[in-house]
């Protein structure tokens, strides 16, 4: 059986945000932000362990993060965190049957009831809130 017969596109299929609308983009962003946050979390645990080296060790590691690049990374982490949280709550509500519409007879043009305006608004809200939080985070980090 060839790969095409199995309908498996691998990573290429998973990261392709086209064809299925904003829901597919949300699916991709959810996974990217999740992986990014896990990488940051592991780095954060390692970073904070430098406090065991005393004040000098802590200061040296902190210096690495208190740069423009460090602030940019942290701003992206804030955006990923807010998007992942808001979209995650939307997904949880959807799994619980909230906002996915009522069961009905499938009539042409077979619009999926679950991919409705409420969930689309949820996705766009997650993106907008992530952008706002990122700007706020930058303002805090630069002491504005």
């Amino acid at each position, binding site marked *: 059986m060839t790969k095409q017969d199995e309908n498996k596109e691998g990573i290429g299929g*998973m990261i392709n945000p086209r064809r299925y609308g904003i829901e597919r983009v949300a699916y991709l962003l959810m*996974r990217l932000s*999740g992986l990014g946050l896990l990488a940051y979390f592991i780095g954060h645990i390692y970073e904070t*362990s430098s*406090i*065991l080296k005393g004040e000098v060790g802590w200061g040296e590691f902190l210096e690495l993060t208190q740069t423009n690049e460090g602030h940019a990374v942290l701003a992206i982490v804030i955006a990923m965190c807010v998007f992942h949280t808001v979209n995650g709550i939307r997904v*949880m509500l959807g799994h619980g049957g909230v906002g996915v519409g009522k069961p009905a007879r499938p009539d042409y043009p077979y619009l999926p009831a679950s991919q409705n305006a409420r969930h689309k608004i949820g996705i766009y809200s997650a993106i907008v809130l992530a952008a706002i939080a990122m700007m706020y985070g930058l303002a805090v980090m630069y*002491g504005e």
Partner: protein
Amino acid sequence: MVSKMRESVIMKIHYGTALAAVALVAVHVLMRLTQSFAESLEYANVIANYQFLPYAGMLEIILILLSIHGFNGLRVILLELKQGRAYEKAVSYGCVAAMIGLIAYGSRTIIMVNMGMV
């Protein structure tokens, strides 16, 4: 044990850890905003945070919640990519091992600083 747990139960744990982590991480972030950002990260301030037992306890809970949520999320992504008995077992046990390793490493920092071993 890992492979025998039902996926529906694992997803409930995934959602439960997410909701609990959101609340506790909010407190963790707000602690950084009680002073200026740079000031809150000064050595003496951070040591004081760790040595305040309720806060250290909260950090430990966040560590456990996010490790479970993060590595289960990674497991889900890896299982979406490829399936198979051996692969699924390797991914599940690998994620559990990584999760335990991260919790142990993070707990070591929290416990040592809390007990003044710096």
